[in-house]
């Protein structure tokens, strides 16, 4: 490995953290749905991709300015989440987990194919008001896009924390995820809670999409790539744990950047999956283990 200057180090770190935040946000979607329904939604990344395309269409075709694009994208995606839950997921409640897994993988394929049909497979660019020259601090140059990613992730996570911890509905969501039967018996409308969880997780995917779009080019396969890394993030963090998802995401983001710098080429990408394997060998319960054994 070459000598690494402070400037490069900081730059890699910030890039790693910002990519990590993105993986973490998508992973949050995985974990929210997993906790509420014990289903793993493999289409989470592709849902994010749809968010990016919807934002792109609103901005380029309809010429909306940035703020309305953000609000509308999140709203549209939240409604999309509700629709998915209602039409595809709810009928699957009680089916074997494997069937649900196949369904969400299939859903991912469909979303990708339909996106390709509508928007084509060439890469699109999405500009934001903050897509300007990078911020130069001495020898460090930082993209505003990356700083915005980190900032938004922090705000979103704080918001989510406050919602889940202090609001009546948020605590009810936690209760329903911890013990569905007991939640129903105290009068929590469990089906409604599940629907809102889907809504929330697709809305978070929309936020991730709005953040990823200015960083990378948009194409139908983007969700698959990000989705798989987010899945790794969720496992590394300890599936079923919200803060774990974010920490896992940041870990793999940083590892990816530094390995990519040290060995060049595709090693950065590969390192993510090596990390996954190591993690599964050494600490399969994840960084932040949920201290609960399933009752038989």
């Amino acid at each position, binding site marked *: 490995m070459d000598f690494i200057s402070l400037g490069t180090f900081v730059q890699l770190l910030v890039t790693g953290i910002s990519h990590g935040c993105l993986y973490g946000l998508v992973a949050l979607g995985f974990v929210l749905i997993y906790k509420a329904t014990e289903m793993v939604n493999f289409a989470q990344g592709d849902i994010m991709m749809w968010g990016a395309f919807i934002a792109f269409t609103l901005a380029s075709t309809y010429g909306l300015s940035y703020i309305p694009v953000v609000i509308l994208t999140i709203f549209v995606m939240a409604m999309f989440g509700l629709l998915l839950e209602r039409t595809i997921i709810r009928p699957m409640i009680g089916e074997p987990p494997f069937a649900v897994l196949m369904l969400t993988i299939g859903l991912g394929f469909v979303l990708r194919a339909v996106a390709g049909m509508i928007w084509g497979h060439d890469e699109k660019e999405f500009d934001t008001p903050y897509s300007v020259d990078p911020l130069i601090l001495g020898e460090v140059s930082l993209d505003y896009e990356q700083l915005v990613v980190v900032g938004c992730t922090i705000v979103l996570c704080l918001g989510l924390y406050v919602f889940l911890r202090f609001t*009546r509905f948020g*605590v*009810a969501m*936690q*209760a329903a995820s*911890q*013990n569905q*039967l*007991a*939640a*129903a*018996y*105290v*009068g*929590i*409308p*469990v*089906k409604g809670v599940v629907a809102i969880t889907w809504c929330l997780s697709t809305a978070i995917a929309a936020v991730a999409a709005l953040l990823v779009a200015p960083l990378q080019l948009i194409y139908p396969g983007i969700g698959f790539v990000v989705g798989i890394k987010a899945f790794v993030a969720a496992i590394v963090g300890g599936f079923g744990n919200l803060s774990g998802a974010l920490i896992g995401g940041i870990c793999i983001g940083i590892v990816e950047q530094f390995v990519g710098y040290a060995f060049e080429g595709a090693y950065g990408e590969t390192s993510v999956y090596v990390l996954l394997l190591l993690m599964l060998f050494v600490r399969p319960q994840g960084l932040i283990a949920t201290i*609960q054994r399933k*009752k038989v």
Partner: protein
Amino acid sequence: MLEVRNVESYYGPIMAIRGVSIDVEEGSIVTLLGANGAGKTTVLKTISGALEPQKGSVSFEGQDVTAKEPDIIARRGVAHVPEGREVFPFLSTEENLRMGAYTQRSTGLTDDLETVYGYFPQLHEHRKLAAGFLSGGQQQMLAIGRALMLRPKVMLLDEPSLGLSPRLVHEIAEIVVRLNEERGVTVLLVEQNAKMALGIARYGYIMESGRVVMEDSTERLAQSTDVQEFYLGMKAGGVRGRRRWKKRKTWR
């Protein structure tokens, strides 16, 4: 107040209850006794809406509630305390109780909390602790307390004595009687501990393989030779204790 009529429920292809009818009068304590697998829990699940009956009906306060969603039935004032103290393990004791009041609009929430802490001082002691760390007895108290937060008209108690020490069983039994007398909560109590259940209930049903085989006032149930033999463990007749393992149960 609560009427169950000819209910048949299935777990997949397996018929768990085969035409059960039960009446619970307002203000009473009614018990449902039976061995493992007799279908007692299934009856409760059918009442509270967790299971949909194939046949028959459940009505509460004169209104049909057959196969309604559990949260709707809970909203009507039916509090189900499930078997095995299903608390929310990662929420604190107090949050668990507050969740019990989910159907209530915030008025009087603090008073209700005080009431529950009055009945269960131990819960007040551990109100900040995650419910998963409570002992078995405390979790059972929490489950009952949480149901109480719903301001229930009827409480369905599923084996509250399960896995508790005799002293705790006694304590829980006392509290059930107090809830019934002081707060007018009607109770449908499912139990394996027949001695405790017959002691506090006024009327009782005995179930065996999915059917009600006997129903009567608890005094008369306690006199029945079958109940004495199979539920209260008394031996029939003389010093030599002739066991009747060859004789059939007649449920008379």
